């Protein structure tokens, strides 16, 4: 984990408040999802993003309209960060007709063409060539959009990642590979998966530049995102960002997390939490009062509660939905 950033970066109050708000929304949303799972309202697999919020919020801050994103099954944070409606996301988690996929996708399979969010993929690593394919389409069509392709340290060992690196550089595709290195591929730590632990450097064999970023620092993430985007939009091909981050919760809801110590988790929460970091910047810099932040907390809580209520009240899909959307 990299060192804490400077206490007084050159950033406006509005910008910091925006990050605070967006990261808090993800965290509270995920906490609520965890509760609903415990109540039996959400079933199956449910992978929470708590701890990693700065990665998507920082990178989204660097994007423009038209840019695309695709990710793995740990996808709720990415959806909220790109502006998808929390109600539609939560209702998908509960398997209701008001969900983004009418209840037919679930936690791991949501999409929004409007927000250029292309899933939500349950097969580890599959989203990597898919993201390069989205970038292929943009290059073919001659626009300057870039695609953010998110995957974890576990997926980073999949063969198709390297097939994709090879073609993405060969064809100079405008794709940013974002490796969210949270230290654990389900229960297997990075050290137990590979001797080559600097994932950002693995693109060098193909000619793709990469860098490691403190993924718990939203400002560092945004700055790295801007650099990568500039590289891509200028037609220089792909870029790799390895985000050093941490997930506080288990791999999925059923994970007892015996592979790491409670102390390890507590240490990160105390020293590196991405939301506390921005909160500190706001309060210690005198940019925002406790009252202002409390008002935001309250607002976020209301949005999340509203999404949970919607997700409970939205009806289950009609049985006829079983047979729709198989063919266009």
């Amino acid at each position, binding site marked *: 984990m990299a060192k804490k950033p400077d206490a007084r970066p050159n950033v406006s109050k509005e910008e910091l408040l925006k990050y605070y708000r967006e990261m808090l929304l993800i965290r509270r949303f995920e906490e609520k999802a965890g509760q609903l799972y415990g109540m039996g309202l959400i079933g199956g697999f449910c992978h929470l993003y708590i701890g990693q919020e700065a990665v998507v919020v920082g990178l989204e801050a660097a994007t423009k309209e038209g840019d695309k994103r695709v990710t793995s099954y740990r996808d709720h944070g990415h959806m909220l960060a790109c502006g998808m409606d929390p109600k539609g996301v939560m209702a998908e988690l509960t398997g209701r007709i008001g969900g983004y996929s009418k209840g037919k996708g679930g936690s791991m399979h949501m999409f929004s063409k409007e927000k250029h969010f292309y899933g939500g993929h349950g097969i580890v690593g599959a989203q990597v060539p898919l993201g390069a394919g989205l970038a292929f389409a943009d290059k073919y069509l001659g626009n300057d959009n870039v695609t953010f392709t998110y995957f974890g340290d576990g997926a980073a060992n999949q063969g198709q990642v390297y097939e994709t690196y090879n073609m993405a550089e060969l064809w100079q595709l405008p794709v940013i590979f974002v490796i969210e290195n949270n230290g654990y591929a389900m229960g297997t730590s990075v050290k137990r998966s590979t001797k080559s632990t600097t994932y950002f450097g693995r693109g060098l064999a193909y000619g793709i530049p990469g860098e490691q970023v403190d993924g718990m620092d939203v400002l560092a993430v945004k700055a790295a995102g801007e650099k990568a985007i500039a590289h891509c939009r200028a037609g220089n091909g792909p870029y790799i960002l390895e985000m050093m981050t941490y997930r506080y919760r288990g791999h999925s809801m059923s994970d007892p997390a015996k592979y790491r110590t409670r102390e390890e988790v507590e240490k990160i929460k105390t020293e590196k939490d991405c939301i506390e970091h921005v909160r500190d910047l706001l309060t210690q810099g005198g940019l925002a009062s406790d009252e202002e932040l409390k008002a935001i907390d309250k607002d976020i809580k209301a949005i999340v509660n509203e999404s949970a209520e919607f997700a409970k009240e939205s009806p289950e899909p009609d049985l006829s939905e079983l047979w*729709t959307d198989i063919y266009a």
Partner: protein
Amino acid sequence: MATEVLMPALSPTMEEGTLAKWLVKEGDKVKSGQIIAEIETDKATMEFEAVDEGVVGKLLIAEGTAGVKVNTPIAVMVEEGESFSDAAPAAVAVSRAEVRPTVVAAVAAAPAPIAAPVAKAGWPHSDLPEGPTKTMTVREALREAMAEEMRADPTVFLMGEEVGEYQGAYKISQGLLDEFGPRRVVDTPITEMGFAGIGVGASWGGLKPIVEFMTFNFSMQAIDHVLNSAAKTLYMSGGQMGSPMVFRGPNGAAARVGAQHSQDYSAWYAAIPGLRVCIPYSAADAKGLLKSAIRDPNPVIFLENEIMYGRSFEVPVDPDFVVPFGKASVMREGSDVTIVSFGIGVAHSLAAAEELAKDGISAEVINLRTLRPIDYDTVLASVMKTNRCVTVEEGFPVGSIGDHIASTIMQRAFDYLDAPVITCTGKDVPMPYAANLEKFALITPAEVVTAVKSVCYR
């Protein structure tokens, strides 16, 4: 002593070729390894080397001769100082000259006219539309379908191994790079999983990819993207976004290429909701179905067959000719038994039907053309008329398309059956290499004849 030089086999499926050009003349001295001729197959023009030193005694086949069967003597080599007339015919030894397969010459800018035999099974389609037709090979039909659709829709592009500069491993894409350029005819590295995934992603990004698998055997490397990424996304997204694209290439056994390169995946892909599955028999099927497939908003598996590529059929000239999905073709009408098949199985079925006619058995032959959807109505109507059914396919017996057809007939037309349905399939073994074993492993017209006689109690 004189030595005969024989027409070489230059690909697993080559039966004959064109002696395009002699590079030596009678009386020339030839060194071992010297290129003596250019031979045109239906895929490429290959350079042909002499194996032994000697003097060209006699050129037996004139250059420009088409349809020269493999193993036909094409020249006689004599030793130095010897003339052709000196060499006693009885002493002629056989020399199979070598070919340098790495040298592919004369990949013409425009698709070269391709010498191919006209299919012996010449029954017309009963449902070809009115209007003029032209004779073309399955290969030409596939190429024309792609070219026409690429001209009509700028978002259609072709990607795959050797589709561009090499002009297609099986020459299906010959000439497309020249017409459409490297932006739309994209050569990929040999990484099926990666480029299949990129193809699916591109389909979500507003393009209509045609992804060529050099053969469907290699689609196993990419099957996760075909099933999990392409076939299921429309459903998983609640109808928001699907994958308008085609995965195409040769499927099934070619000839003598062994277990890993000889498998029919029809039943595998036909099992998956969200996919369309096309399997043409004739050139008209190939052209009409491929145009439908490229226009279709769903992911389409398009199963071709290497042995069929060079066969010729009549194809409507009308550029708007398409074959709709889910519409079987009755290739031959009959009253005693229904033979249901698809792809190369149709050729076996038609040959069997011809044999059966000699014994007074009238067989109706149905070419399914698409396996997802399947035209159940045509099959059931025929079985209700003939009261007997045999299915014919090249794939493995367990979980075959024939099993599915038989069960459908049992459930929906049980009372019409006068005999159990027999499913003719490939044998339940990996494909052997030995010529006799391979022949034994594949379904043959003779087996179809036996099955039909069995259901007819003859």
